[in-house]
């Protein structure tokens, strides 16, 4: 299309099979020079597998890849970098204890004298407006800054195709804007960009063309600016979107969970300490905690669930009972349920059957243990009930948790906690890595539980999720929680600033006071 110049990258008929799954099924598409091309699809649609083959981490089982019109085989990432393919991964590979410069130097294929490398790093940063001190230790950097290291690392190789895998999932709205500026500048200079995401508004704002994957196949290639978010979402999911029903104007009940002045020192060298956290959640309320990853969400979940016990007993109050000195099991007996972010190995034991996994957290409230002996029948019947109620796709209560897909395992875990009828449910990243169908079911389950009078805390990095799910929202940053604000009428700009660590901004306090009737002051 562009004056007969060959496509920068062209894939035709790429097939990749894993035991039991066809991850990519005859995938074909092309990226032109200087184009920002979106690769859009749900979790599990095959996006990551596809880019891993482009970057040489995996080899396709069949199909052809052309680079500037020439057929190529990319046998490893080094070969990909030699061709001019750079990649920024969703999960960074950085040594926390080293500096920015040391991390970049370690990642170079050729050895370059330190002084030359540093001046090249400074050049790249200047050209693209990426501010970063090369001599800072990575531990001290925010997630957005860490991503910049990875971008600089990729740009040092003068790439002609840059692959960005879900780059915005950990960024604040402001950081996303800065990233887009860099990407647009790169594209204007002729570098092609393959932008992987499932966030439709970003793709509409940034990309020239979008290839939509579903179940490993290309379902459409379209111009995102000419499409609506809804039409693209429907192509991505393959069915009409299910809208979660959230009854308007819910009455809030009594306070069920009150956290007051909770402070916990950091655990481990890279842990985050919690500083003076206060909030209250009422019966029927869904309370959201937004924030960029690594700002204390994990520590907060462990503190609430009782997996880490610290502080004084009245720092956490559940239904008027001080519980901060109680351990996980005792808290669960009093009605506190939790779902940690990591499903495999934290919320569930992957090698155990689902029935055995039910014993893990439901044994006391469901009566699965009598005088020290497990009653397998109780565990099996309860697990069966969870599977039926939450439409968990599995071969039965005897399948191992590890054999379930992410979405189905999450539905099982949520179901396991919800059917215990908890007074308070704390959930971290309820829909992380979950397909849209399962995500909608999980969201509906959360809303239904709140309807039934439970108090719910949702910790998530996905701001869109929180805005659609929650009644009240607070932002966690470096272990501090902002003042809660009502979701209705919340100011996205302000939430973004809070996520980025701007505290005490006069505008922020003003916004809170705009809706005084919706604000729950932290309990004294």
């Amino acid at each position, binding site marked *: 299309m562009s004056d007969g110049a060959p496509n920068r990258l062209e894939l035709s008929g790429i097939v990749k099979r894993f035991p039991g799954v066809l991850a990519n099924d005859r995938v074909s598409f092309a990226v032109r020079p200087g184009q920002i091309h979106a690769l859009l699809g749900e979790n599990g649609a095959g996006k990551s597998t596809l880019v891993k083959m482009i970057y040489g981490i995996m080899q396709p089982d069949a199909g052809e890849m052309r680079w500037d019109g020439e057929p190529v085989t990319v046998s490893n990432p080094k070969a990909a970098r030699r061709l001019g393919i750079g990649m920024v991964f969703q999960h960074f590979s950085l040594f926390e204890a080293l500096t920015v410069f040391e991390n970049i130097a370690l990642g170079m294929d050729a050895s370059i004298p330190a002084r030359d490398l540093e001046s090249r790093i400074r050049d790249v940063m200047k050209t693209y407006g990426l501010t970063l001190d090369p001599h800072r230790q990575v531990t001290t950097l925010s997630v957005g800054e860490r991503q910049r290291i990875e971008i600089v690392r990729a740009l040092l190789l003068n790439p002609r195709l840059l692959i960005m895998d879900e780059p915005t999932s950990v960024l604040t709205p402001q950081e996303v804007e800065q990233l887009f500026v860099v990407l647009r500048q790169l594209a204007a200079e002729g570098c092609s960009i393959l932008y992987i995401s499932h966030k439709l508004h970003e793709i509409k704002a940034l990309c020239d063309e979008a290839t939509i994957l579903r179940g490993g196949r290309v379902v459409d290639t379209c111009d995102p600016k000419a499409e609506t978010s809804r039409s693209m979402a429907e192509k991505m999911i393959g069915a009409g979107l299910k809208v979660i029903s959230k009854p308007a104007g819910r009455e809030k009940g009594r306070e069920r969970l009150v956290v007051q002045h909770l402070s916990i020192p950091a655990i481990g060298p890279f842990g985050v300490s919690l500083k003076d956290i206060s909030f209250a959640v009422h019966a029927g309320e869904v309370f959201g905690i937004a924030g960029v990853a690594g700002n204390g969400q994990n520590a907060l979940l462990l503190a609430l669930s009782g*997996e880490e016990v610290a502080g004084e007993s009245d720092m956490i109050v559940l239904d008027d009972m001080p519980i901060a000195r109680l351990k996980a099991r005792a808290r669960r007996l009093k009605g506190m349920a939790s779902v940690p972010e990591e499903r495999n190995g934290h919320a569930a034991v992957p090698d155990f059957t689902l029935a055995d996994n039910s*014993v893990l957290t439901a044994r006391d409230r469901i009566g699965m243990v009598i005088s020290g002996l497990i009653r397998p029948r109780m565990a099996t019947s309860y697990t069966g009930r969870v599977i039926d109620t939450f439409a968990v796709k599995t071969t039965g209560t005897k399948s191992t948790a590890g054999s379930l897909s992410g979405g189905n395992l999450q539905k099982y875990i949520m179901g396991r906690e919800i059917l215990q009828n908890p007074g308070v449910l704390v959930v971290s990243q309820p829909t992380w890595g979950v397909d849209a169908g399962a995500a909608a079911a999980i969201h509906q389950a959360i809303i239904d539980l709140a309807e039934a009078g439970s108090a719910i805390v949702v910790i998530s990095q996905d701001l869109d999720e929180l805005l659609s799910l929650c009644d009240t929202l607070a932002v966690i940053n470096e272990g501090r929680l902002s003042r809660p604000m009502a979701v209705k009428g919340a100011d996205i700009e302000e939430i973004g600033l809070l996520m980025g660590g701007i505290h005490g901004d006069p505008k922020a306090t003003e916004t809170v006071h705009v809706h005084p009737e919706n604000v729950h002051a932290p309990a004294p």
Partner: protein
Amino acid sequence: MRLRLEKRPSPSQFMLFATPLMAVALTMVIGGFVFTLIGFDGFGAVREIFFTPLMNPLKWQDLAVKATPLVIIAVGLSIGYRANVWNIGAEGQYVLGGLSATGIVLLTQDMSGPWILPLMAVAGIAGGMAWVAVPAWLRTRYKVNEILTTLMLTYVSVNLLNYLVFGPWKSPRAFGQPQTIAFSADQSLPYIIPGTIVQLGAPIAVIIALVAWFVMSRSLFGYQVRTVGAAPYAARHGGFSANQTIWVSLLVGGGLAGLAGMLEAAGPFGRMVPQFPTGYGFTAIIVAFLGRLNPIGILIAGIVLAITFVGGEVAQTTIAFPYPAVGIFQSMMLFFLLAGDVLVRYRVRIGNRASAGDSTSEASA
């Protein structure tokens, strides 16, 4: 064309049971070849070591005697291993169990009564537990690796044994031999099958294995141990304390090793001597793994290892096969078993792109 490992969707139950058998078979074949190559009658040795003890009913009582301490110690170790707690110093706990029982013997020299033997058993268990309490405390308090501490305490225990039998506990009637006085009838295990050398220890080993099987498969404690071993964070999420699990599993392992030491001292040995540590505590590690950390499997594996001990003695007398070489056969078993474990989680595929053909044909179907 080449061999390729492919991850199985779930661990193979068949391989879980087949690999111990494969390990034993491979040990016989490879061991036979190796010893033939270095100039021995390798396959004769395999026959004498692995088959003669089974074919000759006279040897069966020897099997029961040898298997008893192996099974008791291995059952205790397997509980810790399930929780990822690696006590490899059962030999030391076994020695302490024997020493504690001997201490009771010396205190009750001029007494008699059926209460002495149970008291010796309690002392043996307590001695093993006390010896393992040091690594347990260091591990839970200071995160000191229990593999090192349990092993090192084994050497301490052997020196303690030597000090006692060469020194204060030496029998005045032993003509300078380093040994204690002989245990009296009330201080020794009764024979349970008349005319054989099978003592009370053998049925105790069977009962311990059955009880351990029931506890590990049906009780919440067994569930706790398995959860802590399989997924420590999930165990914490479920409200199980890792430190408590470490303590209990180490104490059970040390206590059972101590009991085995008492049963050996009050049984086959009949007095305390410097030759008391015979390596049962180390061989029990092989038994635990060969039995798949399952108490019933351990019962069978204990007999297999007992066969190699008894067979080693047979081979020594019949074909002059060096007895220490039995240790090589035993180690090969563990080696092949651990190496074979890869087959539980992976399957072997032949050819470079065996799956590429399938997928394209399916894709175009």
